């Protein structure tokens, strides 16, 4: 597992790295950067599974940092002193929020969440990197997400399509329960599904409220039917 720790407090970073190494043993590849800029530079050439992120870096506003982090392909775990901003952090789509001071047991819990990929609290926004910087999209506005290589194409209620850096797998686990994988290449927002149709040849599809049609794989149809009831 590849982890990047972004923390400007030397001793705090040392503690984090020491404990992660102890828990993960040989599986871990740990990197430390002191600033977000340095971290982003590193990420360009070295994709990681998770970012352990301090929200207060050299006096910068934590949520600009956070938006930058959660828009990336990796999962983000916040390690911060500002616990009163945890709710907001989860809304941004972080996987976990570890309050300082922390111990090894708390980090183990965060790593478990990382393994499962499901956040401690559901997000309200999805951060997408657009031409004009990072945009926070309200999750309820997402109708459909299509896989597109390493990216995901997010289709919004107003017909707009935006690209997100995370994979469909990561998104499936990150998003709330109303978002279900219908197909290798599609995640549906069940709230936007009008009905499920059976087609000749044991093929299935979902008809969305906006009229769009999305194929549903044979293995998923039973689950979806149950969820729709």
């Amino acid at each position: 597992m590849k982890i990047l720790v972004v923390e400007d407090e030397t001793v705090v970073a040392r503690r984090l790295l020491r404990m992660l190494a102890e828990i993960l043993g040989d599986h871990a590849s740990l990197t430390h950067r002191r600033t977000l800029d340095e971290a982003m530079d590193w990420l360009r050439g070295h994709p990681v599974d998770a970012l352990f992120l301090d929200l207060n870096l050299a006096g910068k506003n934590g949520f600009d940092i956070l938006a930058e982090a959660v828009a990336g392909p990796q999962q983000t775990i916040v390690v911060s002193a500002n616990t009163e901003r945890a709710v907001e952090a989860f809304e941004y789509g972080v996987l976990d929020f570890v309050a300082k001071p922390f111990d090894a047991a708390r980090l183990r819990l965060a790593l478990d969440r990382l393994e499962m990929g499901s956040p401690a609290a559901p997000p309200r926004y999805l951060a997408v990197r657009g031409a004009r910087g990072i945009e926070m999209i309200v999750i309820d506005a997402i109708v459909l997400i299509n896989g597109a290589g390493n990216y995901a194409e997010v289709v919004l209620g107003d017909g707009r399509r935006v690209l997100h850096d995370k994979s469909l797998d990561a998104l499936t686990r990150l998003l709330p329960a109303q978002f279900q994988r219908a197909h290798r290449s599609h995640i549906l927002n069940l709230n936007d599904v009008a009905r499920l149709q059976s087609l000749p040849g044991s093929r299935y599809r979902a008809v969305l409220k906006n009229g769009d049609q999305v194929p549903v794989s044979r293995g998923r149809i039973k689950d979806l039917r149950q969820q729709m009831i």
Partner: protein
Amino acid sequence: MAASDGWDSRHWYDVRFRTLAWLRCRVEIPELYRAGQKPMGLYVSGTLSTEIWWNGELLGRNGQPAGNAKSETAGDINVVFFVPPERLLPGDQTLAIRLSAHHAGYRINTPLDALYIAPYQNPLSVIRNQYRPSMFTVGALLLAAAFLAGMWLRTRTAASAWLALACVFVLGQLGAEVSRAFWSYAYSWHATRLLAVSLFSLAGGFCLVGYLTARFAGSRRWLIPIVLVGVISIPILRVPDLITILIIATSLVCGLGVAFVTLRRGQRDAWIALIALLGALIVLAHEPTQFLDQGQFLTFTLLLLVFFVDHIRSFDRTSRERDQAQLTSARLELELLKKHLRPHFLMNTLTSLSEWVETAPRTGVAMIDALAKEFHTLNRVADKTLIPIEDELDLCRTHLRIMGFRQDLEFSLEVEGDPVDGLMIPPAVLHTLVENALTYGAYQQDTTLTLTVERGPRRALLTLRVPSKATDAGPEGTGLAYVRARLAEAFGERWVFDGGPDNRGSWVSRLEFPGVAQ
């Protein structure tokens, strides 16, 4: 001496002498006394002893007139003689008064103030009627004096005391004046009574102007003319009413002086006092001879009440300003304490501490010591306006030590220049600058901050130099509002605080303030 009283003044002549004298005149008697419908009284007021002869027969005596002071017995200042109807002759009556005034004690135009016939009654009740309007002011003055005295006890403000005393002395003057209507005394006391009136007016005028100097921070020199007029006029002039008028006029003019100078200085609230004093002076100038008996107490009470209301308003404003200042101090104290409870400082410190405790317990303990010291010092200085700079430097160094433990680096503060002993500074001002330097400097190697102290006779200049790559004001950050508020709280407007890059890799903050030596 109205005509209806039946006094015929045709035969009146001046009595200027002090020897034994006779006064003779003819008196017309109104019909109602002849018919016996009302008892007839002959009223005599003045600083004299009298023997009254009615149609050649002795009617009565007030004291014992005589040719010299030794054999004279002083009569009462106000007396009435009953004239029985059977003593009346048809036509005009012949009234002869044998009088002497050896005990008057001061120069007088005439010893006889009043001589008239009126229905018989207590002579004092007639005088009382004359003073009635003045007596209405007693209650107001008493109440104001009591309230102001209470205010002085609570706040110890000089203005309250001055005004309370002014009320008391005006009351004293009123008492001395009005006592004549309640107490029929031997005329030899009259001079003493009038002297008391003058002295009370002197003290009252003095306190009135004293109040104005206290209220408007005016010069006490305005009190000198009043004292001079009192000291010179009382022994020299020997005309009591004139002395009192002079004293009152001088007090009003000096009060006007204080108000005028205050107004010129730009303190606009002095105009109320100015108008009130001007009004009183106009009333006095309008009828100076009648002022003492009639207008004086109403005028003075009105004047004092205007000052009273103005004083309360000013007091109210002052206490509101004081409350505001206290509120600001409390807010600054809270801000300082909160700064150390802010999660970013506290939780990062505790996380680092956990790491040291687990990996290098000795360092952990040293860090705990530093933390304890910082909180101890903080607790001691947070509620102060000014602290010895040694305490402030302690606070800075302890903070640097804690931050050193957090970054596993050596941070230090060097002090150079003039000695710092006796220099006072608002708490956590340098500390805030040091804190900002560390937050925005993001130092990754051992770092020394330098504080240069320069002290003049009245000012102290502190220059803090910290390594910084910053080239504009941006990185100094949020604590500066705190620094400015603390400086304003301690030094009003007598401070300078600025900062900027020196183009040699440092950020320089400059603090200039009065170098209070304590």
